[in-house]
């Protein structure tokens, strides 16, 4: 049985124009690379992840969501000095999960968005750490406190950010 916890009206599939689909992730990558130089605290945010989640839950298509996450993650990897694929794997999973969840949950209000981002940020970090430690052999520590705080900050940023990004959505 297909269980959905949303009303019929809430399950709306959106799409993005081609320029928006290209430039929003690129802008997120650019800001993520540029802003921490000037605003050091910005390092705690993960704008590409937020864009991945937003696009995935808006499109409500797991295949599209995971591909979006994969591309954004690989691009983010290419800005680091680490092997390409760590962020790619993590964001692929997040993209798939967010779009799958978007079909079943109401993700249009601020509360659900906050919880969604909070949860997926933790998932993202756990996958990242597993891959980085298990495959790449990086010596990364589990900092649960820091991770929870970062998840909270990202979720708090996601609420207004998603409101802005809502303007780029088009009914599918």
């Amino acid at each position: 049985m297909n269980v959905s916890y949303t009303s019929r009206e809430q399950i709306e599939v959106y799409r993005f124009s081609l320029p928006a689909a290209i430039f929003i992730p690129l802008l997120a990558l650019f800001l993520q690379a540029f802003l921490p130089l000037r605003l050091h605290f910005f390092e705690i945010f993960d704008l590409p992840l937020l864009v991945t989640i937003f696009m995935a839950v808006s499109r409500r298509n797991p295949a599209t969501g995971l591909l979006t996450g994969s591309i954004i993650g690989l691009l983010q990897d290419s800005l680091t000095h680490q092997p390409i694929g760590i962020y790619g794997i993590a964001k692929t999973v997040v993209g798939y999960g967010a779009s799958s969840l978007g079909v079943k949950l109401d993700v249009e209000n601020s509360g659900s968005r906050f919880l969604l981002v909070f949860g997926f940020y933790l998932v993202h970090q756990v996958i990242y750490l597993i891959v980085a430690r298990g495959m790449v052999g990086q010596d990364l520590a589990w900092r649960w406190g820091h991770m929870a705080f970062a998840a909270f900050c990202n979720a708090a940023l996601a609420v207004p950010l998603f409101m802005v990004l809502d303007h780029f959505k088009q009914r599918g």
Partner: protein
Amino acid sequence: MENLLTRHRNVTILVVVLFAEVVGLAVQVKRTSDTDSSRLLRVWTVTAVSPLEKAFVAAQQSVRNTWHSYFYLRGVRAQNQKLQEEIEQLRLQQVRLAEDAGQARRLQRLLGFKEQFIARTLAAQVIGSSGSDMSRVVYIDKGAGDGVEQDMPVITADGVVGKILRVFPTSSQVLLINDPSSGVGAILEKSRLQGVIKGTANGELLLEKMMSDERVEAGDQLLTSGGDQIFPKGLPIGVVKKVSPGKDVFLNVQVKPAAELSRLEEVLVITQVVQRQPSAKEAQASMRAVDILASRLPSIPDNPRLPSTGVPLPVGATPPAAKPAGSKTAPGAKPGVTGTTAQAGSTPKPRVKSGQTAEAQLTGGAVKTSAPKPKAANSAANTAAGVTSTSAGVPPTVTKTPRAAKPTAGAATGASNPADQKQPGTAKAEDGSGSATAAPNASAPPKPPTGMAQNPPPATPPAEPQP
């Protein structure tokens, strides 16, 4: 089977994509050398992002420059004055350090040591970062087209920043020293203990390989040891922040980086490091204290004339026109102070040949008056003779004349350094109207002795023979 894949299309795509990513990652990890397989994607991404970053940085710089240059000028005058004073202090300090460095070079040359010199640097602007606290790299706006190569050291005026990790056509990736994958050979400045500086996941610096019985204290300076073959020796890395017992027999030494790694804006890429023996000429080269002191002191006119009131010049002061024939004063040589000659009020004799003026060096904060270096004189005579060697407050009653440097041959006059002229006999000259027969420094601008009276020099140590 086909029906199964169709029914679980999304899961299948997920598995395929993840599998591809895992395989790609495994291939990169397997390779020990640089991951050339991923270079294309990196170049694409950096090429797409860096123009935006450059444009933003340029815009930010121009706005900041406009603001600071034209609008926000509050306190600039006071700051300028403060900086000028600081420059004077630093220049004096530089003389002392140059003397030390000269001595070190002489010793190195004697021992046949080779020294690394930073021959060329390239200034670069930091335009971006990785955007992740898992990867501490920054991007600079200089790339292969500017001569940047892999593994070149990157520094700031404060200290070491990192090294070039990847080079792109118009930008480069710099691995910061606080990344866990970086390592810098370090040496403690005082104890000369060597270790390795490593970054942590938190972005901190740790000094590794320090045994627990070693004496490491908070506040100790850390310099590059040169052992990593990347960073030249002697660059500041940071200061020991905290020392605590670590694993096994090692200490856990936390280091505060000298460079502000989280607020980098402009950096220097060391593009050329030369390893050579210091030459004898270089070893002997040192700045003269009179050059420094002369620029600090208030000047008097080059050609002092009789005042319109008809007041005669002070005793011992000789107008330039009254210089005896044969007195060769170098261009720029100016009225200084007559030393013992001035006291006697006698006509000064030309003892200084152009370019062979008395040389004063500041060593360890003391003004050392050394001899001129006549061409015919041997080195021992150079250092010991021909100088009015005085101590502060002691009248320069003894004038040593070099044997090889006869007055006619261009030996120095008694007044070699205005710093040595503070004495009762020269009180009249301190009014700034006195002229000099001998230029303390042929290349220095005209300076009166006034300032010297205000700034009495420290005791003069004996001149050291030059090797």
